């Protein structure tokens, strides 16, 4: 059934992009993530749902090692990206984050021009040989971020002057400008109004053509709308993981059922 749904949407998703095995995360003495095993497919939108504090954001931040920036955070277990352990001592998290981009809960454009916001990533990664190439990358990224038409006439005005929804799409454009393979989104719509949310959701669905997208969301409707796979987290454990349609129609675990029917969370 899972395959059927995805085939209907016309995307090939057999490959496993990210595979987590026995992942445990500790914040100091707090055991935030307990033994999570999950396989995330390529060219698929995977949604992490669950009540606040269940560890879904923490787990998301493990995938591009953003948790390294938190001193007291320790991660155990293996997370494989294309079969390579991202917690291998030989891995430089900076190089990893160029492959695994991230969009944050609150739109956080740099206080620079729209152009510079998008061009920054390609610049530091040396993706453009000259100005013309950079211009092209910026335009392509802004088009992918579905914001090109709105900003093409004011590329050099500050990114912070855009509306919330535009800022978030700018951040998505900024993230895709570095040509990542995986895009992590931490509640990307929680600061947006319904119209902006709809635009971003549409964008996420398009991004699935090229990327493996992992999205953390509080809204079950959003998970149902944009994702093909859903993982339900509760109190630091992965309770249930499967095709979105199945999770929302016939959850196996009683906790999942309670959550999606509104009894916990």
């Amino acid at each position, binding site marked *: 059934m899972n395959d059927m749904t995805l085939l209907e949407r016309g995307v090939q998703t057999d490959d496993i992009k990210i595979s987590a095995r026995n992942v445990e995360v500790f914040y100091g003495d707090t055991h935030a993530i307990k033994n999570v095993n999950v396989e995330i497919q390529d060219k698929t939108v995977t949604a992490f749902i669950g009540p606040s504090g269940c560890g879904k954001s923490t787990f998301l931040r493990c995938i591009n090692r953003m948790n390294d*920036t938190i*001193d007291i955070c320790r991660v155990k277990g293996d997370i494989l990206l294309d079969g390579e352990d991202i917690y291998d001592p030989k891995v430089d998290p*900076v190089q990893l*984050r160029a492959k695994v*981009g991230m969009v*944050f809960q*609150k739109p956080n454009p740099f206080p620079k021009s729209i152009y510079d916001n998008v061009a920054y990533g390609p610049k530091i990664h040396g993706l453009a040989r000259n100005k013309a190439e950079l211009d092209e990358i910026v335009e392509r990224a802004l088009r992918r971020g579905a914001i090109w038409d709105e900003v093409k006439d004011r590329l050099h005005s500050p990114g912070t002057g855009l509306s919330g929804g535009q800022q978030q799409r700018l951040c998505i454009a*900024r993230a895709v400008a*570095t040509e990542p393979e995986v895009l992590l989104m931490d509640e990307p719509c929680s600061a947006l109004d319904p119209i902006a949310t709809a635009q971003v959701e549409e964008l996420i669905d398009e991004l699935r053509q090229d990327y493996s997208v992992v999205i953390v969301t509080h809204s079950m409707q959003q998970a149902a709308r944009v994702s093909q796979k859903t993982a339900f987290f509760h109190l630091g454990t992965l309770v249930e993981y499967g095709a979105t349609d199945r999770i929302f129609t016939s959850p196996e675990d009683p906790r999942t059922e309670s959550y999606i029917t509104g009894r916990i969370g």
Partner: protein
Amino acid sequence: MSDATSGGAVPAAGSRRHGSILQLDARTKKRNAKEARFRAYGLGAIIIGLVFLVTLLTAIVSNGVGAFQQTFIEVPVYLDPQKLDKTGNRDAAEMAKVSTFGYTPLIQQGLLDLVDREGIDAPFEKAGDMKALISASAAAKVRDYVLANPDALGETRGFELLASSRVDGYLKGRVTQESVERDRNISAEHLQLADALREIGAIRKGFNSEFIFGADASESRAEQAGIGVAILGSFFMMLVVLAFSLPIGVAASIYLEEFAPKNRLTDLIEVNISNLAAVPSIVFGILGLAVFIEFAHLPQSAPLVGGLVLTLMTLPTIIISTRASLKAVPPSIRDAALGIGASKMQSVFHHVLPLAAPGILTGTIIGLAQALGETAPLLLIGMVGYIATNYPDGISSGFLDPNSAMPAQIYEWAKRADPAYYERAWGGIIILLVFLLTMNIIAIILRRRFERRW
């Protein structure tokens, strides 16, 4: 939801709620009175502060403004070639052998002749009686002129010379004919003569640029003393402070704030930096004496050493303010940079530091201003000496030659016996405050200009 509230069993609260809103109830009245009282206290505090500020500024300006005015005497001096160039061949080396003692009688004679010519009735017959009117610095001025223009020998030239500090004080009202009764340097007759000379225009008050640009002078020549060389000393010290404390302070703060692991050691460092900011500055002075002068054998009284000592003192201020402005940059900016694969250093230098720059600059300028006004550590490294030399020639001597600094110079003047120096101390404070005010204004402008929103 509980029974107690839903039952409506609280009639007291109910009745109060139903009172008219046009009538203040007792509680509201009390609350408003409290607020009014607090506002009055606050207003009172501000008024007291303002009164003190106004008093202070008035005192400084009224006491110090005199230092910017000085009394000059216009004296026609006959440059006698018999006395100034005994060999008669206008040889510069020979002429230089005549010291200022050779010039003094000529100047005094010139003034006496002027008095006679103008028919002023004065009980003075000897040229030496004029000594009390003219500054001891006059001879040097005439001598410098003659050495520069040997052709003037044999002619009578008019010189605008400084009047002695007593005469200057008399014109400014500091000295009166009664107050000089027991003064051995000057008599009431001299002051009467000064009045007469003033009437014919030979004595007048003028703007005293020497006070701003000149060097310090000896105890008996208050009229000649200026703060210029001390300003230069302060300037070179500030260069040293800026060159050392800004890079060291900013590098230390960035490391501590962005890179250092948070553990016992960094906690300890943090506490110590905060404590250092509160250490009395004289402690830094004695540290500088021990380390820079006695151990490293750097020259005494040099702006380089003064600057190093003040660097020690300024560092904590700069580190604390830099860390505060780094902390004020929202973490979302760091996340954004890291999230697209920037390294820690790129995220700090490309994004965090530019946003923190206005705060860092403001902190640095405030630290510099603090250092500029610091006196105590300079006492200990000898930067409070009597520096009557002229300007240091060249950059290296600017850093290494003995010099004073503005606050040290003011302190030095305030210590001296001649009341003329008291006025100069206040005048020096005006100049110091002008510098501090300028620095603070620059800090405000920088903050306004580079402030960005996110």
